[in-house]
């Protein structure tokens, strides 16, 4: 009995010591995390003031060099504040609004520096500067309590509790939403892009659930005897579609079809895949057959990638006028390495063809365009987005720089004004 008591006492003491130790470690960890959050918060608040000043200072100059320096500061600071904001645990809504507002401000500065349209900047920014000052003040008052939490993480988290409808950030959120719409309204190109992404512009007539199923069986005969479950998209979805899940033997998957016109959005199957039996050449031939069977006769092969179970093959629509590839109207296929079965098709971007304005391609002398040790290997005409949601006719150049090591680059150059739109390092 006495021995038992001794053992029990020792166990209780040991457990107590362990608990104190763990509690100490936990508290220390929480303090470290809280210190990091507080640092990000302070950093964001300080840089927000600097950003407001930089916007204000950019309105001082008529001199191009001087305004360029300030635009650089606006772009850099907006990116810095964005980064700090994304590291602070505040509600998702406020965080989203901040990131969006700051991103748009930075983009505007970058675009102005690139285009040299200082007039538009000078017209817009006085109001933005005033709004930014108001936001900065609102932010300071909303975050003041975060510094009074006695180093306790739970106090911080209570303040941003998403279950609590009245957080301290409510005012910041309302002001941000208001200013975002006023200061940076969507451009026409952006709305077009969004509409395309949301498949809102489809004009075809609605198909029924039965017609949707028939279409699936016609497009993918391999699952014609599957068990199907059809559901419609939620009423609040940006565009209506049928979500068709199926199960047949070893195959499980889904097909999404638009309600308007029954266009294929995507198809994906999961099934066990055996060892590769088909060659790359055979896979590519099958991929060409599949796109045709899916009714996509106006596309051409872009690239393919092999992984351990399947090949992913990309096609893009060919412009009927100049045969340039329209990358934004892409189709992706997934083929099993064992039998070449079509495991997936994604046509979300293909459904609505891009509107392409007529453009001219002015030739470029590659010898003067690139450095001496760069060799142009391939040049292809393509259409791609220029960063302002406009499709531009471009030269896609595969260039090799062969100095110490052989390096390959993909350079996309606007064919009309010769602006470099993209540079990618290829391995």
């Amino acid at each position: 009995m006495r021995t038992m008591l001794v053992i029990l006492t020792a166990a209780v003491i040991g457990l107590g010591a362990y608990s104190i130790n763990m509690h100490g470690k936990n508290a220390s960890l929480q303090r470290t995390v809280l210190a990091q959050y507080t640092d990000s918060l302070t950093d964001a608040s300080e840089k927000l003031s600097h950003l407001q000043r930089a916007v204000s200072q950019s309105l001082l100059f008529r001199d191009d060099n001087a305004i360029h320096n300030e635009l650089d500061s606006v772009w850099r600071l907006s990116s810095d504040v964005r980064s700090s904001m994304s590291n602070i645990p505040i509600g998702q809504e406020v965080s989203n609004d901040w990131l969006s507002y700051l991103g748009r401000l930075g983009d505007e500065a970058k675009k102005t520096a690139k285009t040299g349209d200082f007039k538009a900047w000078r017209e817009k920014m006085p109001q933005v500067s005033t709004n930014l000052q108001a936001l900065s003040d609102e932010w300071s008052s909303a975050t003041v309590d975060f510094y009074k939490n006695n180093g306790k993480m739970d106090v911080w988290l209570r303040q941003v509790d998403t279950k609590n409808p009245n957080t301290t950030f409510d005012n910041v959120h309302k002001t941000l939403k208001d200013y975002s719409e006023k200061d940076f309204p969507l451009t026409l190109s952006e709305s077009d892009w969004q509409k395309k992404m949301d498949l809102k512009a489809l004009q075809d007539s609605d198909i029924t659930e039965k017609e949707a199923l028939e279409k699936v069986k016609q497009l993918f005969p391999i699952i014609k005897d599957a068990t199907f479950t059809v559901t419609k998209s939620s009423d609040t979805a940006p565009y209506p579609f049928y979500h068709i899940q199926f199960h047949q033997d070893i195959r499980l998957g889904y097909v999404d079809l638009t309600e308007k016109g029954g266009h294929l959005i995507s198809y994906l199957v999961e099934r066990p895949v055996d060892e590769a039996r088909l060659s790359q050449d055979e896979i590519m031939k099958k991929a060409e057959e599949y796109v045709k069977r899916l009714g996509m006769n106006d596309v051409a092969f872009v690239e393919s990638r092999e992984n351990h179970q399947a090949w992913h093959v990309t096609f893009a629509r060919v412009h009927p006028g100049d045969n340039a590839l329209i990358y934004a109207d892409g189709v992706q296929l997934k083929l099993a390495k064992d039998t070449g079965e079509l495991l997936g098709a994604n046509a979300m971007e293909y459904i609505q063809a891009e509107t392409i304005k007529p453009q001219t391609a002015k030739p470029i002398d590659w010898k003067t365009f690139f450095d001496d040790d760069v060799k142009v290997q391939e040049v292809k005409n393509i259409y791609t987005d220029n960063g302002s949601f406009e499709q531009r006719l471009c030269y896609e150049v595969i260039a090799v720089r062969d100095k110490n090591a052989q390096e390959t680059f993909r350079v996309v150059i606007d064919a009309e004004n010769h602006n470099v739109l993209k540079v990618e390092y290829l391995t």
Partner: protein
Amino acid sequence: MSRLFQAMKKGVMIMRLVSIVFAFMLGISIFAIPQNDAIAFTEQQISRGAYGDDVIELQARLQYLGFYKSKIDGKFGYNTYWALRNFQEKYGLPVDGIAGAKTKKTLSGFSDYDEGWVKAQLNAGNQFTYYGGTPLEQQVKPNTGGGGGGGKSSGSSNNNGTKTQVPPKYTDRDVQLMANAVYGEARGEPYEGQVAVAAVILNRLESPEFPNTISGIIFQPLAFTAVADGQIWLEPNERAKEAVLDAMNGWDPSENALYYFNPKTATSKWIWSRPQIKRIGEHIFCS
């Protein structure tokens, strides 16, 4: 004397015959090497986009001859393509950047390939090269926690050490990180649901309302439950990696969603206010 002379003459003839046979055998053995080694490659023709053991061998053999200077990773990308074209040009073969039977046979004839050694380095994640004429032990730098194939990056790898092939804007690190997130968030969900979770991360990458890196999105405070409860650190399975690959290649079963939640466990009132798109498994996807 004449017998002795005749015997000597016979001896010389035998010696000559032996020399000729020896030379002939040597010749045969030299010319036989390419044919024996060619068996090492599979019979399949490979070109840009291919991946796996054949590409590892192709890169190693090209590096052995000094044509390939990048890391041996089993991915037939542009660096392999140029190296192969240069080899074809130098050895009088049709220059098409495709490793067909003739190219493979010629390459095997002029290079050596120690498959066991190369695979061992890839599996160990060592940095290494495979140049001919330099002892192999001088061409390897043991792994200190990084990736394989002579590279410096860590990332997802399969059994033979090769990495996944993803569109150029993503990296092996992105695949690994996203697979961790998908596995932590949706391992009990149907495959479609896993691809959808990966697609949500990529949709956020395109959205101005979220951080502009995959890591920034995943680790944004309060954004993902798996980060908060530590499940993101579980080792993802191949299914989660495959789901990430599909999303990176364009599939989006979420139909452009930016959020998802489990209605049984969601505590945020705000998330219910988001416009819903569709339900997959236990998750509701919203814009």
